[in-house]
């Protein structure tokens, strides 16, 4: 780990004032915010990230940053709430089961106690070639150097949203719920606050995998808003080799509104299989208004993965991703409300 400065401001405006020097992207900014540090410190110890200045945001006193509350606009989730806090909230579990399901199945209890939801959505890929600087090729870490994963061991890599520059999968779980529920992200920068769609937060790798989000350097995530009403018929299926404490090989967040057997509304976020949190728009379009049967679910999954592209070791993710989506749809349908 390289030496760094450490600051612990008391309010968000001060925190933002300490950041924001020009940089090619949010992740390569010389100043990095620290929430739980469970992604950032790992990558600093591995010498993948070497910020010169850390701004600890866990002590920011601004109202709402640590809280989860509801009003007539929807559900507000403070960016500094821990994964554990939201996961353990009984009222949320009842009205938005998909939020709880993405959280309790993520990481370990220790990590969930440390990690904040703002940092959570910004967790970085587990691609081994990215995380180990002794590999020369990694476009995400060192733009233009190539991609070792293309011909390397790529069993956990993505099949959707890939490019010839990068096939790293987005590893997190919570983001699938946010993208499915059309969440907004509330930001604070040196120029003041702004709001973006969660779906616009993560960027496809295309030819610049080093730029992971649309955040401006030094911009702080202050919270999330899930607009509109509740989603009691929603769930998350996370499929993995190990029963706990493992990243998803494939996952699906599903929220349904049913009218008898017919689908009135459906929202789907896919994980483990894509380079970014993946909104399954094609599948949704096919399902909306249809009878929810296993056959219809399978057809929708087929359509969503029609454009999937696999490498040597991750071919299984195409059938697995489809099966996971089918299972999640049927599981949400079978929920007793």
């Amino acid at each position: 780990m390289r030496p760094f400065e450490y600051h612990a401001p008391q309010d968000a405006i001060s925190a933002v004032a300490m950041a924001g020097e020009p940089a090619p992207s949010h992740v390569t900014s010389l100043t990095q915010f620290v929430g739980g540090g469970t992604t950032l410190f790992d990558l600093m110890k591995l010498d993948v990230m070497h910020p010169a200045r850390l701004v600890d945001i866990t002590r920011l006193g601004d109202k709402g940053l640590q809280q989860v509350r509801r009003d007539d606009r929807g559900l507000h989730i403070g960016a500094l709430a821990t994964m554990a806090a939201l996961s353990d909230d009984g009222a949320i579990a009842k009205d938005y089961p998909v939020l709880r399901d993405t959280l309790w199945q993520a990481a370990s209890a220790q990590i969930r106690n440390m990690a904040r939801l703002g940092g959570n959505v910004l967790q970085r890929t587990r691609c081994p070639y990215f995380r180990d600087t002794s590999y020369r090729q990694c476009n995400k870490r060192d733009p233009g150097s190539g991609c070792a994963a293309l011909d390397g061991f790529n069993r956990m890599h993505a099949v959707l949203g890939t490019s010839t520059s990068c096939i790293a999968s987005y590893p997190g779980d919570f983001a699938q719920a946010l993208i499915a529920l059309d969440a907004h992200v509330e930001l604070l920068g040196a120029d003041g606050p702004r709001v973006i769609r969660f779906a616009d937060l993560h960027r496809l790798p295309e030819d610049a995998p080093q730029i992971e989000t649309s955040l401006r350097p030094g911009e702080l995530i202050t919270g999330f808003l899930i607009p509109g009403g509740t989603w009691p018929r929603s769930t998350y299926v996370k499929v993995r080799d190990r029963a706990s404490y493992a990243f998803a090989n494939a996952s699906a967040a599903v929220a349904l509104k049913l009218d008898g057997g017919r689908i009135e509304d459906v929202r789907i976020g896919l994980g483990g299989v894509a380079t970014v949190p993946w909104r399954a728009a094609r599948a949704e379009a096919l399902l909306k208004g249809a009878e929810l049967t296993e056959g219809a679910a399978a057809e929708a999954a087929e359509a969503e993965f029609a454009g999937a592209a696999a490498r040597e070791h991750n071919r299984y993710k195409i059938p697995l991703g489809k099966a996971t989506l089918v299972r999640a749809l049927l599981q949400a349908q079978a929920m007793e409300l």
Partner: protein
Amino acid sequence: MMAEATPPVPEPGENMGKPLPRYEARAKVTGEPLYADDLQLPNPAIALFVTSGIARGRILQIDTAAADALPGVLKIYTHLNAPRREVTKHYTEGGYVSDSAVPLGGPDIVNDGQIVAVVVAEDFATARDAAHRIAIRYEERSPSATFGSAGAATIQPDALAAKSKKAGDFAGAYAAAPVKIDAEYSTPTMHHNPIELFSTAAAWNGERLTVHEPSQFVWQLKNGVASALGIDPENVEVRDPFVGGAFGSKGMMTQRSPLIAAIARDLRRPIRNVVLRDQGFTLATYRAETRHRLQLGATRDGKLTALSHEGWEVTSRQDDYSVAGIEATTEMYACPNIASKVSLVKADRNTPGFMRSPPETPYMYALEAAMDEMAAALAMDPVEFRRINDTKVSPVTGAPYTSRSLMECYDRAAATFGWNRRKAEPMATREGDWLIGYGCATACYPTSMMAATARAILTPSGRVEIQIAAHDVGTGAYTAMQQIAARELGVDPRMVSVRMGDTAYPPGPVAGGSMTTASAGSAVKLVCDKLKQRLGGALPSGRELEQAFDRLGTRRIEEYAEWTPPGQGKEAVQALYKGQMGGGGGAEGGKPKPLMYAFGAEFAEVRIHRLTREIRVPRLTGAFAGGHIVNPRTARSQYLGGMIWGLGQALLEQTELDELRGRYINDNLAEYLVAVNADVPEVDIIMVPEVDSQVNPLGVKGIGELANVGTAAAIANAVYNATGKRIRDLPVTMDKLLDVPA
């Protein structure tokens, strides 16, 4: 049930000792014991390894200027200024090291993660910062990573050829067999990953060297360090009272120990080194990947007539390490015609080494998977098929087993498990969206023994101290030694204290080959016998004991004993003092006749989701017979831990290899998957009483490496029962099952 708050204390069965709680249990859960790297040294400097980013090639340039310039950096060693060490041989060749490639020995890179520099600094943070600032330029060459890689040579050294077991006419019998199985299996690379990281701390005091290092064989380390540094072993002291898991990885000395000691000598300062988790994947040994071809022939009524087991194992270019588990698999079942052969594939890898049940884990998996395939081909119950072919003698030599309770284990475990509910037809049992399957397999482990020496010291208070440089790697060896001494002397166990893991004490065996209880325990029994004889055949108590001391005119009675296993002579003790496993015993070679084995039968239930094919194991049942059980509580823990590890081997564990680059990919505990609580809902352990008076005076067989042997096959066999698909390469993961119709 794992879910209970307190693990059940097993009722001791026939021929079992008391289920005493662990000697050091309280100390351990209160954080009291000092592990090797916790032991204090005056003013140590920190050494951190820098390892290679390629698997084959040459260092063209290594630029340490930026690192050297950091305040707090004391010195950076590379191949250009490495401290001198003697070149020593692999331990199988009469030397001590587990990998004969010498770190910092030159510019050549022979495997992934080889030590290319050592940064020594005042503290760890500075050392790590400096390590990141070292720039290395390589000339890269394509490595041969594993089986099938271009340039990987297949060889059969003479020593391996000599291990091939043969009987009758395999080719003829196989050709004539009415029912045949011919199948290939494979097992992946695995790494031990003990929670306690590898570490070495070294300090010189004049000629004398103190080494603190987690080790399964401190006398080997003492002698090995001395030989690599060209000094008298008398001058080397190794201390390591507690080991935080080892599983074979801390068995034989690595090149790290003399390197750190040489740096401490060069800098005239104590040095501490901890190997980072990812570095441990290449700076210690591992279980290499294996391949197998099994050919079985049988009559229609289920009698085996032909058995051939051919194995292939990966090893390094520099050393011919092999496990050759055909020794067990050719002796397991009655069969008149047997052939076997093991070959090595030399690749650009570090040298593999012991990992819990080194030969049996991969080889018995292959045999037991093939046995299940044959039972299915015969339309026979797998338990009955094994009963038909059960034997009390070696089918190869005719030598008898001293005892063999395999079928008793099967019957007990089958009853507890509810095996009679199994439907022979695959895919016949479902519950909701889950396909259910049952499977079983045999576990076995040979009883090996090594010479051992021990000292006992008695004081007038009646307190006894046992000293033996054997090792408790978390298994309960302290407790076993305490219990054996207390029983022999007829005293309360609380009067006995045990000292281990330190070369200040007389040498005990390597904590490997499941030999500690039998070997060290026999030495402890012997020394206690001698103590009793000094006092007229029994230990008096209270006032009488004090009078006995007065009569002898001393305040301290000390005895020392040397024990050698049957068939081994005085040379075995001499070898032990030199830190060698020689003397005709040891984990691998020279197993005395007749055959001595512990056995077990393991049963598994698997559930596989019909859509996504995740595999979950709600239940495991194992029954084991291992001669006299000194302590049923610690024995149960060994069986439990073994089966849980076996579950990991079946479904999770594998070191992923980038074959193009010859490098390990998942070198961390997030992605190297071992079973967690959620994977292990319910494990039933049954201890089948067994008496064996031939194996050794204690009647004890080695059980530490028994239970992890059969599990992978039992689970893979259950997966077949659930899905109708044979997965012949471990681990069995969902991606391999996605094409099964359901």
